[in-house]
């Protein structure tokens, strides 16, 4: 017998279930328990940059809005810097920029919304720049492993983005584009299944 490879296995995922809000956003579940809930402010009001708001729906395979979904977003600041020690420029991130947000849908309509500053381009692999984008992670009842996708902006030049260009079916690239509906306002619908299915990523 050769030596054993002593890697552990990743804990398998399970659905977040219908009551994910109790743990991650108890105010939405109907009770205030923590001094502060996490992920509500992605960029404090004094963070320099272009303020944007994004709203949208997550739609299931029948076209119905998913009303018990929880989204998290992660993105760089307007200079393209992540507030994380692995980013070599992280010390230059504006105070009050966390880059991470946790977003709850309206239980009646399924509409969600977040406010932040527009991210800048980020250095990708092999020195190739990535167009401004927001990492999105989606959990809900019926979703066994959190789904990752990216939101790009239709009013940016995405033509050289290395990830966008990996999508072989060119028509599907548009599923990652947030539509500009007014100055600073974007619409981003996520389709879990079927016509116009959003591109999801194994990251």
């Amino acid at each position: 017998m050769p030596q054993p490879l002593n890697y552990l296995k990743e804990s398998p995922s399970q659905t977040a279930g219908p009551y994910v809000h109790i743990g991650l956003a108890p105010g939405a579940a109907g009770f205030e328990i923590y001094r502060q809930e996490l992920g509500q402010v992605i960029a404090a009001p004094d963070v320099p940059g272009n303020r944007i708001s994004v709203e949208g729906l997550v739609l299931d395979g029948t076209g119905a809005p998913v009303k018990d979904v929880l989204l998290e977003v992660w993105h760089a600041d307007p200079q393209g810097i992540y507030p994380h020690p692995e980013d070599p420029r992280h010390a230059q991130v504006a105070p009050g920029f966390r880059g991470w947000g946790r977003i709850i849908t309206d239980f009646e309509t399924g509409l969600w919304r977040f406010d932040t500053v527009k991210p800048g381009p980020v250095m990708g692999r092999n020195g190739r720049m990535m167009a401004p984008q927001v990492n999105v992670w989606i959990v809900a009842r019926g979703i066994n492993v959190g789904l990752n996708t990216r939101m790009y902006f239709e009013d940016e030049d995405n033509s050289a983005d290395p990830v966008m260009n990996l999508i072989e079916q060119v028509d599907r690239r548009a599923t990652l584009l947030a539509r500009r509906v007014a100055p600073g306002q974007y619409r981003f619908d996520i389709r879990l299944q079927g016509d116009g299915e959003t591109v999801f990523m194994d990251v």
Partner: protein
Amino acid sequence: MKPAEFFQRDRTWHPPALAPDYKTSVSRSPRLAMLSLQGSMSEITGPTFGHTDIDPIDNDLIRNWAKTGDPVGERIIVHGRVLDENARPVPQTLVEIWQANASGRYRHKKDAYLGALDPNFGGCGRTLTDQDGYYYFRTIKPGAYPWRNWVNNWRPAHIHVSVFGSAFSQRLITQMYFEGDPLIAQCPIVKTIPDPRAIDQLIAPLDIKAAIPLDCLAYKFDIVLRGRRSTLFENRMEGN
């Protein structure tokens, strides 16, 4: 600097998106294949948390919603370590949990189960791991509860667990089950996981050595996040 990537996630170990016996997954699972990405700065970074974000009482579910006294039910400690696949501890990472009370009832405005709410139990907690990746909570053992899947499906007692790790690509939500629960083998959500060894990884054993005599039982639950590989000999990364 060179980004150090994470091991590829073993999608055969995790549940598939479409698991028809868990009915809600049928319309909420993508039909097309995922796009596999090599890690970039966007994936190897993630949010960080510190002690100013949370309070010391946040990991004590017996006390953090107590209004008139202690909640009713079996007092337990849930403790363990957050490790990566290289068995390295994951320090200073946020662990969040949520659960039903001893009756199997959730404090959520959408839960209409007739099991009684407990006025002294909220059902959520959070903590940061220490330098050894260790975490602990004190809580009440949750009860099983019925759910509308097949007409007589009951969830085993479970605690939902959310972990961050150091990178957005390590983000994980799972559920912890309790050793010996006969409902585990019947649950369509548990059985979305194809490999029985993977299911075993979510079952916390009774840890009598960690129990507090005359006070509180204990269960041990270690959580494993994706490991990170070394970038040996790698001057130029291939691909995207």
